[in-house]
């Protein structure tokens, strides 16, 4: 009860409210601009929130996370371009609806679906975060934690890249970067090149701003073209009627369940949930033929599913210390700088944080829904803002955000170098997500492996044969094998299909 009061009290601080308003504006803006992902915005905001109190900083970052989930539907529906990857499935039916003159309706349904998805996922977070952390705290020793970290890493690597090997190499690069600094157990310096600043490790915020902010911006500069697509301007009716509300029930229930489940898988995000949720809702729909052609049920399903991942993602991040998605990976980095280490120990030492986080997410959802319903017409106008303002603003804020972390120009140079490396990696097909995950989880994996080996007297066999460790490492192997088998099957199927086409006379 006391923790509940402490948690609620921390939310009543005017600075927290102000932080949420700031996060709301930023989140809706980044969501509405295609090409700026929530990860990029949270990475950028992380630079400015380091000086804030943890709850204030969480208020900014979590509200961006929530609000971007609302804003990103606008370009998905009006321009057929997802604002963030989470709204990929929204384009399937949202854009056809807009072309039919029902954009207003699609935007409203999308906002309602997103809000209900997040509300449901918050119930999951509030109910399961502490029990999960408690179980993990009781059952997980260093060996199990090591296995869990390996599992989290493999899941993200396997889903985030076209090529599994490129994803793994990106993860390995992150792990290698994670070794820079002083090895805590023996105080030996590693790869510091004699630079004093590197003794405490590299600047995490500078690297993520470079990898997610600058690299994305540079890629947009490299590929910019003149022909811009005009957003659909005929918005039509906004509010759904009674029968339309009724139609939303079934897809919402099915895809909501999908989203909640996917959210709990470490590193699986809203993009995947949206696609699976859309497909499952189609399978149970009375009008599956309308899916992909402007189905109201399709919009409801994709947005409820992708938004319902937020709570699950938050649960694995906070209770287990394994990021639920890229945004959460960046958020863990910021939290560590504030002195909060997500993981099984967090909620046993700070149960009030569950209340604060749930409260922030709840208020952020209500505010985002309110703004989405009231001010959607204004947000639509954002799509007309020319790119040159956007690019110049992102660049200067990346620079100032990085500088703010250390007040040192050298950090800005490090960020720019990370940006150049990031754009090269992006152009060559290496995803940034696994790099950040490797940077975060590498030191944790090394620490836990070190502790586990010490306990086991250096016997690695004893570690991997522990039941829970074996299970988690087995799951890690499965998470790597499944995409490989799936890709091989898809390739052989497409080969068979093309062979059939050749055999069949015209």
């Amino acid at each position, binding site marked *: 009860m006391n923790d509940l009061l402490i948690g609620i009290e921390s939310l009543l601080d005017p600075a927290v409210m102000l932080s949420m308003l700031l996060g709301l504006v930023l989140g809706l803006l980044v969501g509405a601009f295609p090409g700026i992902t929530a990860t990029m915005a949270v990475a950028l905001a992380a630079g400015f929130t380091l*000086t804030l109190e943890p709850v204030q900083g969480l208020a900014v970052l979590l509200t961006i996370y929530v609000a971007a989930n609302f804003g990103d539907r606008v370009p998905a529906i009006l321009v*057929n*371009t997802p604002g963030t990857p989470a709204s*990929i499935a929204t384009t*399937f039916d949202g*854009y056809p609806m807009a*072309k039919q003159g029902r954009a207003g309706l699609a935007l409203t349904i999308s906002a309602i679906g997103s809000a209900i998805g997040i509300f449901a996922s918050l119930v999951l977070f509030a109910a399961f975060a502490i029990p999960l952390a408690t179980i993990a705290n009781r059952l997980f020793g260093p060996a199990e934690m090591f296995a869990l970290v390996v599992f989290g890493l493999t899941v993200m690597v*396997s889903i985030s890249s*076209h090529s599994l*090997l*490129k994803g793994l*190499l990106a993860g*390995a*690069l992150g*792990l*290698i970067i994670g070794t820079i600094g002083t*090895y805590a*157990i*023996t105080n*030996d*310096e*590693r*790869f510091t090149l004699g630079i004093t600043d590197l003794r405490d490790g590299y600047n995490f915020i500078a690297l993520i701003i470079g990898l997610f902010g600058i690299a994305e911006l540079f890629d947009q*500069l*490299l*590929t*910019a*073209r003149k*022909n811009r697509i005009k957003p659909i301007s005929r918005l039509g009716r906004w509010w759904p009627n009674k029968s339309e509300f009724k139609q939303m029930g079934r897809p919402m229930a099915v895809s909501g369940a999908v989203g909640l489940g996917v959210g709990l898988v470490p590193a699986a995000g809203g*993009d*995947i949930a949206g*696609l*699976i949720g*859309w*497909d499952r809702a189609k399978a149970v729909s009375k009008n599956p033929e309308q899916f*992909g052609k402007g189905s109201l049920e399709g919009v409801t399903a994709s947005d409820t599913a992708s938004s319902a991942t937020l709570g699950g993602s938050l649960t694995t991040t906070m209770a287990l210390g394994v990021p639920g998605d890229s945004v959460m990976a960046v958020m863990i980095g910021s939290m560590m700088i504030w002195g909060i280490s997500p993981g099984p120990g967090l909620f046993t030492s700070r149960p009030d944080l569950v209340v604060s986080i749930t409260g922030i997410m709840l208020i952020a959802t209500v505010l985002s829904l309110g703004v989405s319903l009231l001010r959607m017409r204004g947000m639509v106008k954002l799509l007309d803002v*020319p*790119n*040159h303002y956007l*690019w*110049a603003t992102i*660049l*200067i804020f990346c*620079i*100032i955000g990085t500088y*703010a972390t250390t007040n040192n*120009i050298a950090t800005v140079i490090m960020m*720019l170098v990370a940006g150049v490396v990031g754009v090269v990696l*992006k*152009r*060559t*097909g290496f995803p940034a997500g696994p790099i950040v995950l490797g940077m975060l989880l590498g030191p944790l994996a090394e620490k836990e492996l*070190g502790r586990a*080996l*010490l306990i086991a*007297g*250096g016997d690695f066999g004893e570690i991997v044969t522990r039941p829970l460790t074996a299970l988690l490492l087995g799951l890690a192997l499965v998470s790597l094998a499944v995409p490989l088998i*799936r*890709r091989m099957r*898809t390739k052989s199927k497409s080969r068979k299909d093309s062979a059939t086409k050749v055999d069949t006379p015209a």
Partner: protein
Amino acid sequence: MSPHNKGHGRKAAAVEDSSTAAASSEADSIPAPAADDEYVARPSKRMEVTIALVALVATVLFFFAAQGIELRREAAPGQIDARFWPTILALLGIALSTSRLIVVLTRPADSRVDLEVVQRRGVAGLLIAIVLTIVYIAVWSAKSFSLHLFGYVFGFNAFVFATPFYLAALLYLFGSRSWKAIIIYAIVTTAFIYLVFGQLLRIAL
């Protein structure tokens, strides 16, 4: 393909990628609009081979660097020393990059449908933006400087002096041709950053 889909190779590809990754069995039923060939980056075997070779060389170098880590003291029995983890990672990296090299040499190059094609003007624009940023950082790192004019000494905060010029140059480079808009944007943004971050948040700009 409808005119609205034109030029959305990146988005279309994102749809394809994620559907493959997320739900293979369902992939057939998920609409994945075809990418517009004109704006999609072409697969490149040469690039893939080069990158795989660079990765292999880098991981081999990292392996030797890991062996060269100076140890202050021997690890206790069962304890891992500072070389252990980097060595494991280096070996993992060598194995992965060797596998990648074999794959790229024996198979066709990966599809790049999730990337748009690089524009010639884009490369020049990016290089100029990088040079402008380096010059800006160099001027800013002076922190403050003074100007002797007509017998008077004018002191400037380097950030306040350099930022409007930098922003104006960026805006022009990125395509804005309205001088009024450029000047207003540059001054208002600089003032906003200086007041909010320099004065309110006390960041030493």
